[in-house]
């Protein structure tokens, strides 16, 4: 069974969903056929632009170009604000449970490094708490793995985690909330591509435990990062002088999920 079947979801074709929060004046409401425009109480004079449906990377390019053009209109003024963020949904509908936990495990190992890419001010931010900041989420993951019951993951108490698991049962996606709102759309594209690559690379491992073993064999560090995000590791490593420490601490968290059960063979 895959995630779509487990949660009885309507099929969603595209790989990536986006929610872009913007604050400013004269923000565009119309002429954006790829986006829904929504109000957001957490913003000041802000709007949230939500992709109408998930798209592939080429579609994301077009959608961001459309939004960028609209935000550059003469009477529109975009304000850089620490309140805004960009949320990326990665479609996992076609993953099996084990493949999903591979993705989650791989993400947890490199979460601190990825969050650095999203912006230093996003580290420990209450709207996107990492597993190291809000460990309660790890209990929920461990319980879900052991019980083979994914309904645990829909608990609204974990919605403001950098990795929001609640989106699984609603959309069949994992929501990554860490990207700063002030990032350029090129950075947003890089971020979405990186997460998509991570999903695909993680899927290829036999089990979450194999990801941890691979970490140990590679000695962690940049080699392991490259295994998961390819050449994009070059974007991450200059931001992380403490790379080895960040990865080791991420791996320790991820181990709790990977070894929540003795074996994934028949999972």
């Amino acid at each position: 069974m895959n995630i779509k079947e487990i949660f009885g979801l309507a099929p969603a074709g595209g790989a990536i969903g986006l929610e872009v929060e913007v604050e400013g004046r004269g923000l565009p409401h119309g002429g954006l056929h790829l986006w829904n425009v929504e109000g957001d109480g957490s913003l000041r004079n802000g709007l949230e632009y939500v992709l109408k449906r998930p798209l592939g990377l080429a579609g994301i390019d077009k959608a961001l170009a459309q939004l960028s053009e609209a935000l550059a209109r003469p009477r529109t003024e975009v304000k850089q604000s620490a309140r805004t963020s960009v949320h990326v949904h990665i479609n996992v509908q076609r993953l099996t449970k084990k493949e999903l936990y591979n993705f989650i495990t791989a993400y947890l190992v490199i979460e601190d490094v990825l969050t650095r890419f999203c912006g230093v001010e996003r580290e420990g931010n209450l709207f996107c708490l990492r597993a190291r900041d809000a460990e309660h989420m790890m209990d929920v993951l461990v319980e879900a793995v052991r019980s083979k019951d994914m309904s645990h993951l829909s608990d609204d108490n974990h919605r403001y985690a950098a990795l929001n698991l609640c989106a699984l049962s609603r959309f069949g996606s994992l929501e990554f909330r860490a990207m700063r709102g002030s990032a350029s759309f090129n950075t947003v594209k890089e971020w979405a591509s990186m997460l998509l690559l991570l999903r695909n690379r993680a899927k290829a491992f036999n089990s979450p435990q194999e990801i941890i073993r691979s970490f140990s064999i590679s000695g962690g560090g940049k080699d392991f990062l490259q295994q998961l995000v390819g050449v994009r590791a070059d974007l991450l490593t200059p931001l992380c002088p403490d790379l080895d420490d960040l990865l080791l601490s991420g791996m320790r968290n991820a181990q709790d999920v990977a070894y929540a059960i003795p074996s994934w063979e028949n999972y």
Partner: protein
Amino acid sequence: MRYDTADYAEGRLAGTIIKLDGKAVKLSHCFGDMMALVVDISTGQDKEVKLDDLDLSPIQLGYVNRGGEAYYLKRLPKREDWRQGLRYNNVSHHQMLGMGVVQLLSGDYPTFEEAHERVTAYEQNSVAFSRVFAVEMYGYLRYKGRDCVGKVGKDAKITLHPTFLYLTEALKEALNEH
């Protein structure tokens, strides 16, 4: 995260525990030109400070030893809380939060040998000897307040259950912390 008005900062920080110069403080309220009144958790002394001087980086939670028990404090990434700092609504075992955070920031734990001695002498039910490991009465070794991951013999020798052998390195580090 930095705030652009005292009002907004108050909404995110009032009543929560954050850091100032490495110490745990509770923010009472914000006022004036980006100022705040904070209370030092250890001493109870209050102080007016600039909002920019506060350290809003996360406080790493974990085990605290209070009243003869080890409690594992964890934050919940709750939506309906909307606070940057720690408070009753976003932390497990929140009754232990104030002095617990003071203890966590000091990183002050007994050695494993001391911890083991206290539980075998029935002085305490459980004692943490690191941020993530605690020893309990009857020789149970607990990890992150979640799993019993091993046993401690009368000779104080620790044996991890086969399922939790992956913790060998983490345990070694915890034992060598002192």
